[in-house]
């Protein structure tokens, strides 16, 4: 009897631990963030997947500073890309706080707390920091002191990056709407109802604001909010990638893994067929010298010849998904992977120059051939 019962007990205990293991892994995708890299004055700034914001030397990947500083608790996560203006780094954490830090030393100047988390990247212009939180409100803060100048209440969360052009602030929301606010006062100028959540930055070019709601891409008059195309462009799958407009061509990617090139005046596709990556693309297509760079959910980083829409190169798989947008300067591409590394690649051939390990804050020399 003892033998039978002990076997059953063992099975039950194994089942219990298996259940615990499965359930603990079923809480959904971890909140690692999708902060992109940005480069200013030979320093690459980015929010790491470990909840810290980093500043590294582009020359050798040496750590300049991190925030929160070593030995203090990291943020829950960082989705917003650091914004550098007038020697100040503005960082917004998912922990419902925005910080102004000295861009060179990382020393805090001020902080501002919101009532709920922040995902959207702020915009800084004319001594004002504009940010959106999931309270859900849009705030205008004095860039020097962090004092609030105005706020605008919304209905839904804002995960899309903000956009500022010609004195108007464009805000895309999960409440299916895009708002145009007067940047000076916060007064609403117009709003547009899309067919679903809007998670892309409303990008403004030549008086037209472009964004996507679910799989539909819209072009609106920036002043009035009136539609500029006969009908929205159907990208075939959800678009979470910020549109990029270069040389009068709009590039955008979908969570179905397609990259489209469109005429921004007519929405007419410019390639015979969209490029198809192996998995979803949330990263924006960052363009330099006719090449489009982006990361994908298949853990790889891609370079496309934008004249033809054909692939130039792709990296071997990193250890995690790449959902943050890259930054490129002086022939080097920087991006963050969910494998907890920042990568610096040669833009010409995709070979890794160096990596920065967020687990131990050290520069890593790549394996030859990668």
């Amino acid at each position, binding site marked *: 009897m003892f033998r039978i019962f002990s076997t059953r007990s063992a099975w*039950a205990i194994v089942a219990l631990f298996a259940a615990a293991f499965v359930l*603990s892994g079923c*809480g959904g995708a971890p909140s690692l963030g999708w902060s992109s890299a940005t480069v200013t004055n030979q320093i690459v700034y980015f929010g790491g997947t470990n909840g810290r914001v980093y500043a590294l030397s582009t020359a050798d990947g040496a750590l300049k500073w991190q925030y929160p500083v070593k030995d203090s608790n990291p943020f829950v996560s960082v989705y917003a890309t650091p914004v550098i203006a007038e020697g100040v780094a503005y960082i917004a954490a998912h922990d419902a706080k925005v910080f102004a830090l000295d861009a060179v030393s990382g020393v805090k100047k001020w902080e501002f707390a919101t009532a709920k988390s922040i995902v959207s990247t702020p915009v800084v212009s004319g001594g004002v920091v504009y940010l959106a939180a999931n309270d859900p409100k849009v705030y205008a803060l004095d860039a020097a002191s962090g004092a609030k100048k105005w706020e605008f209440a919304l209905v839904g969360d804002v995960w899309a990056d903000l956009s500022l052009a010609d004195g108007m602030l464009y805000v895309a929301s999960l409440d299916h709407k895009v708002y145009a606010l007067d940047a000076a006062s916060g007064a609403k100028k117009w709003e547009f109802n899309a067919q*679903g959540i809007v998670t892309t930055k409303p990008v403004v070019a030549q008086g037209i604001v472009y964004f996507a709601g679910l799989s539909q891409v819209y072009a609106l008059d920036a002043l009035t909010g009136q539609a500029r195309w006969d009908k929205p462009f159907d990208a075939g799958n959800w678009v979470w990638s910020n549109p990029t407009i270069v040389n009068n061509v709009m590039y955008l990617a979908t969570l179905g893994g397609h990259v489209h090139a469109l005429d921004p005046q007519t929405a007419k596709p410019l390639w015979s067929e969209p490029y198809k990556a192996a998995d979803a693309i949330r990263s924006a297509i960052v363009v330099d010298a006719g090449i489009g760079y982006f990361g994908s959910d298949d853990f790889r980083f891609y370079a496309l010849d934008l004249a033809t829409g054909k692939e130039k190169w792709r990296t071997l798989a990193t250890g995690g998904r790449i959902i943050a947008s890259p930054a490129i300067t002086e022939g080097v591409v920087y991006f963050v992977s969910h494998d907890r590394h920042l990568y610096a690649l040669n833009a010409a051939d995709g070979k890794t120059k160096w990596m920065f390990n967020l687990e131990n804050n050290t520069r890593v020399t790549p394996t030859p051939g990668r």
Partner: protein
Amino acid sequence: MEVFAPIWNNFIYNPMVNLLLYIYVFVGNYGLAIIIFTLFIRLITGPFYAQQQKAMKKQQTLMQGKEWKEMQKKYGKEKERLAQEQMKLYKEHGVNPLGGCLPALIPWPVMIGLYQAVTMVMGAQPEQLMDLSKHLYAFAPQLAAAVPVRSEFIGFDLAATPNFAAPLTLIIPALVLASTWVQQKMTIMPQADPNMASTNQTMQLMMTVMIGMFSLQFPIGLSLYWIVFGIVGIVQQYFTTGWGNLFGTAQLATVAINANKGKKNVERK
């Protein structure tokens, strides 16, 4: 895992995510959608649970019967012989000792799928909402248009986690603990072997504490699912086996322990 993922997604996960969203579109409240969805899944998996509970009940009746007590008296000191006789007894009465476990394992994938679907549709983390697009059926665009789901339900934010700064939210883990404990207590089978009874009680406590800990860390929407899941289980258990062991301890174990003590005392004298 590469091979397993498409099978899991196509046959379990995606249908559940879309069904849950469809219910949400229909009723317009995510809390209500979770309740209806959990009830529906419990209905589908009900026959497996009923089979498990009947098997357990049969086994339990046998263990409380005269034949088994006589065997205990006769072979109490010969553990191996007693085990053999027990198996014979099971065979004679058509009881499969694993009959209570195997049917219970069949609905597990469905339960895990349900759990994942509730989390995914809630989209508490931005990455979850982004990944949702991979699981929605293209032929039902109204489901995508319903995203994000409104997470308010009877004063609770289903996407938030319980915290001590908002004491009312702690009611949720308390309800999870209570429903899990009651269900565990009702299900537990009285055991003749004191070691086994003790193991069962420890496991019951561990399971309850573990689920309670999870409910403190997970969004309230998941806890709502767990509470409904537990309450339906309690009702189902009641109609199959009654209150079971809810108001008692592992009685057989107590009898066995007392019997053993008595024997030892007699031997000493």
